[in-house]
């Protein structure tokens, strides 16, 4: 399961791995037809149509000209195929462009210009500033003397900040010229799609340094489709190429989502198919009986006495063909067409454009719009979804003293400013942790101001706040950090960074104070990840109080801590860390374990409180959607108190007298079980009362509940309209979605960050907020919107209209097919049950293609109620949720110009088509239409039919 990449080895391995030809194409010119046909015929409906069309070739049983089925069939296939072909052609063009781009590659020790597609695994690729990376590379050299380079990964994960990448330690200091001749081997896992992990080892061959194994992480790589920024040049070894890059592997085709309506249509199709079979059997038997009893007497039919062996089958098969139009051939095409139009309407909607950023809403998945109208549960993230994710440092508590409580802004608190001015050691240490315990990169702009490139909004807020308090993080030069404090510059050397993971919930850095050589561990993290690890004897009560107090105000809290390390303790630990970092299996888990060994006996410095404001219109949106019968669950990684506070402030739950909060907690199985049962009991009692009951569960209890008491928890989930799940991990979020889905609820998950991606992909409908945490969620989602409040419009207006329109369209498709089919069936009773078609081929085809399918398409413009009415009475959505629109009568309620055009134009088209066919002497309908139109009785009859039909 490993791949060994020999650097710069021109001879071997050329063939072992694929070259760098990117191919996103599904088809080639040769296999397009068979492959596409195969794909289309893997759908039941298409198989059915093909069978019918083939049966029609047998002239003994075909009631009409085979063209009446083959025509539409070929048309529909051609439409689907040409759409596929067009998409594929565009993919081919963009592939070609990428493949033929010229890049610098080392060949036989000389840099050469070659096309990107000719890069092989093991080649050394040179990049200049602003170049796009052609394949996955392991860095071996950059223009930066410290071996750093900056990349923009927007195309990969949607995050717009610059990320630093470093060359592995083994390559440090290799001369520019020698890089051409470098030899070595990289041991790396087989290609996968995880863009956050790369657990590999590098060993250089002599004469380069030594044959010591050097661990590689994702930090040492630059991945395909990233851009090199702020770095003059960089070079790296190609490890994954072509479609085997991280990007290429993660590109896979997402599982197509099926809407409730689609399932309904499929069921209906199945039911009609069964009905059709029954009709065919009955009529077939009747036909054979009639033939044997009556038709033999009808001398003019000349039935032979001895028929061929298949004689018994002929009449049933004829009826099968006659009834084949019962299943409308056009419905799939019509639905695809209107669905892509729904998606376009969402893209076009001016009222869903984020005014601040100008980003419009986007429907990435065009197939599931009508499900939006049937949502029953919305699972929402908190940070960045309900809130703005614009973090502002508001308060802090430093060694027991609260700052910022009066003014609400610690940065203006005179006491704190005085303490800073007086260089109070506690405060200075606190601010130092704020300033350097992070992964922020300071960038000096041309005007001299320092801009911070941060991956997390919290870190950004902390660093900026520290700078406002005169502890300015000025510069990061390789491992040396510079802090300017009161005019003096303090330097720290970063020894190790213990990165943040959502499981550890804290991050730490180990730095060496360059003045006195002390090694310090600086940590920040969630309270439960820091406070329990305080050194024995430290009073953490005030900090717990502070955390609670801040959480009550809806602020996000972080605890800051530090510890001085002894030289030998660090050295010993460093070795372990290094070993853990270079494992290939379970590296993340091993590292977490090693980190645990260092992160204890903290001296707690204080607590920071960061405000995250609610987005505009969140309470109203939640209230409106709640009225529409949609249940809300909040899933957040944040603390319980913060979550409850935010929930209260955005109408998520009602305050005490009206609402009731039930807690599920406990650390052990028994505790969780008891509390779960208690909550269930209360829930059952209060379910009849008009009271808002919500339950609150934290990640730990949730895990136990899901594992051991799944049934009870499921019942709770069904009873409860509101739930708050705090401190949950991304996978738990996805599990909760799964749980609700397993109860046959339509779920919508909305979130903005990378931690929501799994839940978004799991849910029936995933909505991403193109927010400040990058575009990761928005990319994975079916719909991306700029602000939470657009959800109201997305569901109530777009979802509901789409649902109603699709319901109308599919009903109509079935209706018109059944109508014409029943006419044929009734006619067969007066035509000796012999399977004669009442209609000729042309009329039948025109009916299916022109008269009925085109006009119904304009029903996409139908609005049964105005947008204002729906917003005022969101309860209307109940009808959609129950799937009731599917059974109401057919009606169109509003007629725009296009609808008029379609309806009247269709009437005109009917006469034009018929007149044309009546004018062709060879057609069966020659002059019939002219004769009809001359008869007054025809017009009187038509008028009667229309009027009676309207009545």
């Amino acid at each position, binding site marked *: 399961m490993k791949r060994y990449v020999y650097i710069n080895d021109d001879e071997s391995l050329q063939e072992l791995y694929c070259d760098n030809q990117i191919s996103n194409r599904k088809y080639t010119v040769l296999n397009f037809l068979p492959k596409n046909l195969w794909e289309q015929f893997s759908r039941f409906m298409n198989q059915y149509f093909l069978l019918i069309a083939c049966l029609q070739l047998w*002239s003994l049983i075909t*009631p009409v000209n085979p063209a009446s089925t083959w025509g539409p069939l070929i048309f529909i296939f051609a439409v689907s195929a040409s759409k596929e072909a067009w998409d594929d052609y565009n993919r081919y063009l963009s592939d070609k462009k990428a493949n033929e781009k010229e890049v610098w590659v080392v060949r036989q020790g000389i840099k050469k210009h070659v096309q990107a597609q000719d890069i092989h695994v093991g080649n050394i690729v040179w990049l200049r500033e602003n170049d796009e990376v052609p394949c996955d590379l392991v860095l071996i050299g950059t223009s930066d003397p410290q071996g750093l380079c900056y990349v923009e990964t927007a195309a990969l994960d949607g995050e717009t900040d610059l990320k630093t990448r470093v060359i592995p330690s083994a390559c440090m200091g290799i001369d520019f010229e020698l890089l051409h001749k470098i030899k070595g081997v990289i041991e790396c896992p087989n290609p996968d799609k995880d863009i956050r992990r790369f657990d590999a080892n590098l060993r250089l061959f002599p004469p380069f340094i030594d044959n010591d194994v050097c661990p590689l992480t994702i930090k040492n790589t630059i991945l395909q489709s990233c851009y090199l920024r702020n770095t003059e040049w960089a070079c790296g070894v190609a490890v994954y190429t072509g479609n085997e890059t991280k990007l290429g592997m993660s590109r896979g085709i997402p599982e197509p989502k099926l809407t409730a309506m689609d399932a309904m249509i499929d069921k209906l199709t199945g039911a009609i198919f069964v009905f059709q079979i029954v009709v065919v059997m009955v009529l077939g038997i009747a036909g054979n009986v009639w033939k044997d009893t*009556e*038709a033999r*007497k*009808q*001398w*003019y*039919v*000349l*039935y*032979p006495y001895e028929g061929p062996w298949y004689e018994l089958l002929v009449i049933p098969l*004829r009826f099968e063909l006659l009834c084949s139009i019962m299943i409308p051939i056009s419905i799939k095409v019509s639905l695809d067409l209107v669905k892509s139009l729904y998606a*376009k*309407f969402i893209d*076009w*909607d*001016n009222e869903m454009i984020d005014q601040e950023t100008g980003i419009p809403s986007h429907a990435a998945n065009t197939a599931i719009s009508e499900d939006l109208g049937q949502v029953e549960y919305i699972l929402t993230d908190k940070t960045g979804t309900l809130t703005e994710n614009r973090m502002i440092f508001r308060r802090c508590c430093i060694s027991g003293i609260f700052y910022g409580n009066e003014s609400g802004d610690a940065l203006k608190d005179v006491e704190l400013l005085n303490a800073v001015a007086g260089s109070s050691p506690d405060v200075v240490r606190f601010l130092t942790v704020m300033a350097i315990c992070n992964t922020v990169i300071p960038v000096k702009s041309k005007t001299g101001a320092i801009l911070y490139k941060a991956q997390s909004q919290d870190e950004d807020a902390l660093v900026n706040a520290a700078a406002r308090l005169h502890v300015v993080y000025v510069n990061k030069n390789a491992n040396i950090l510079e802090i300017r404090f009161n005019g003096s510059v303090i330097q720290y050397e970063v020894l190790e960074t213990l990165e943040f993971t959502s499981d550890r919930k804290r991050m730490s850095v180990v730095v060496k104070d360059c003045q006195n050589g002390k090694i310090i561990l600086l940590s920040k993290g969630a309270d439960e990840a820091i406070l329990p690890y305080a050194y024995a004897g430290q009073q953490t009560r005030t900090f717990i109080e502070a955390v609670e107090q801040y959480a009550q105000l809806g602020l996000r809290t972080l605890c800051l801590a530090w510890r001085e390390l002894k030289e030998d303790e660090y050295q010993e630990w460093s070795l372990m860390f290094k070993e853990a970092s270079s494992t290939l299996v379970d590296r993340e888990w091993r590292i977490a374990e090693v980190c645990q060994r260092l992160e204890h006996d903290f001296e707690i410095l204080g607590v920071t409180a960061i405000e995250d404001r609610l987005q505009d219109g969140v309470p109203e949106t939640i209230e409106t959607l709640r009225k529409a019968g949609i249940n809300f669950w909040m899933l957040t990684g944040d603390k319980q108190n913060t979550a409850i506070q935010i929930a209260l402030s955005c109408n998520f739950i009602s305050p005490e007298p009206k609402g009731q909060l039930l807690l599920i907690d406990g650390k052990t199985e028994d505790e969780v079980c008891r509390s779960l049962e208690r909550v269930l009991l209360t829930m059952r009692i209060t379910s009849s009362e008009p009271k808002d009951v919500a339950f609150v569960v934290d990640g730990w209890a949730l895990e136990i509940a899901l594992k051991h008491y799944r049934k009870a928890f499921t019942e709770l989930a069904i009873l409860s309209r509101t739930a708050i799940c705090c401190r949950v991990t991304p996978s738990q979020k996805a599990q909760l979605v799964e749980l609700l889905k397993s109860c046959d609820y339509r779920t919508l998950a909305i979130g903005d960050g990378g931690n929501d991606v799994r839940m978004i992909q799991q849910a029936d409908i995933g909505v991403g907020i193109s927010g400040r945490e990058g575009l990761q969620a928005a990319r994975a989602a079916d719909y991306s919107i700029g602000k939470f409040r657009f959800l109201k419009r997305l569901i109530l207006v777009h979802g509901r*209209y789409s649902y109603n329109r699709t319901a109308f369209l599919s009903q109509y498709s079935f209706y018109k097919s059944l109508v014409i089919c029943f006419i044929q069936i009734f*006619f067969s009773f*007066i*035509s*000796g049950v*012999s*399977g*004669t078609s*009442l209609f000729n081929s042309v009329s039948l085809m025109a009916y299916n293609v022109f008269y009925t399918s085109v006009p119904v398409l304009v029903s996409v*413009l139908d*609005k049964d109620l105005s947008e204002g009415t729906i917003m005022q*009475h969101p*309860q209307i959505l*109940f009808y959609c949720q129950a799937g009731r629109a599917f059974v109401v009568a057919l009606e169109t*309620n*509003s*007629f*725009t*110009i*296009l*609808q008029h055009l379609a309806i009247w134009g269709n009437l005109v088209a009917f006469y034009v088509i018929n007149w044309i066919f009546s004018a062709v*002497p*060879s057609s*069966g309908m*020659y*002059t019939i239409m002219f*004769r009809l139109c001359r*008869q*007054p*009785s025809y017009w*009187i*009859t038509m*008028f*009667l039919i229309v*009027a*009676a039909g309207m*009545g």
Partner: protein
Amino acid sequence: MTDTDQERDRNKETAFYKFTQQTLPACKPVLTPAWVITIFLFTGCIFIPVGLVTLRASRSVVEIVDRYDAECVPESFRIDKVSYVQDDSIPKNCSRFLKVHKYMKAPIYIYYQLDNYYQNHRRYVKSRSDQQLLHGRKYHGTSSCQPVEFNNDHAIVPCGLVAWSLFNDTFKFIRERAELKVNRKNIAWKSDRDHKFGKKVYPYNFQNGTLIGGGKLNPRIPLSDQEDLIVWMRISALPSFRKLYGRIEEDLDVDDVVVVHLMNNYNTYSFSGKKKLVLSTSSWLGGKNDFLGLAYVFVGSSSLILALVFMLLHLRYRRPYGDTIYLPWNRKSLSV
């Protein structure tokens, strides 16, 4: 106002913009009680007169229908009618007396009506070749004509079951010893004669084979002039149908007795079909058909009744239009 603002405003005017925002102007008919009642009243007022006029036109048509298939078999053959009709040696002459009850104005159309005769049977419908009818012997793709396709390896012209089973009863009409003039020309569609049946196609080998079906054709007359065949080959959609035989171009007075001398050749006995002779005048609306008029009167009067019922209901239970209190969810909260 900046340029871009103006541009955006101008954009808002365009139809495409309105289409994208789903704000195209639309008319939205709301079926308020007043509208519904008006429409029903209106329909009633229009339909009843139209119905009465139609009914009058239909009633003005005079029609004489005479079923002759049973009566025209001599007493001695009544037990086995099939052998009677199939036996060529027995003369098939038969006379019928038709009494005219009402003055009939020329032209009087003569139809023969067949009941329980499935011209719409699939085997029958398909068994013809339109191309051969037009092009004659030159055309060889006559496979659809089976089972009546070949005679001695030559394609039969015209081939197929439809032509083969041509109706061959003949009628002669005598009033007061004088033969009534029957016009047998121009009974088929002109378009059929001109474009569907060939002018140079002669039925040279029709009904020559071992299987004899219905009528024979004069081999010296081209198909385009064989109007009986053309009429017969316009197959009927229903198992009971009338076909035009000719026109009497003299008026018939009340109490005139028309003697019909007919040749009862055609076999409907084997499948117990009926044969009828129909004499009918026509109105501007065509033949006798009360259904259309009755349907109009029925629809018209039922919409009048509905209009009255709705009006009464509306007056009895008035309520303001668009009151949200009647919405289901509001009603529920009222009852709680």
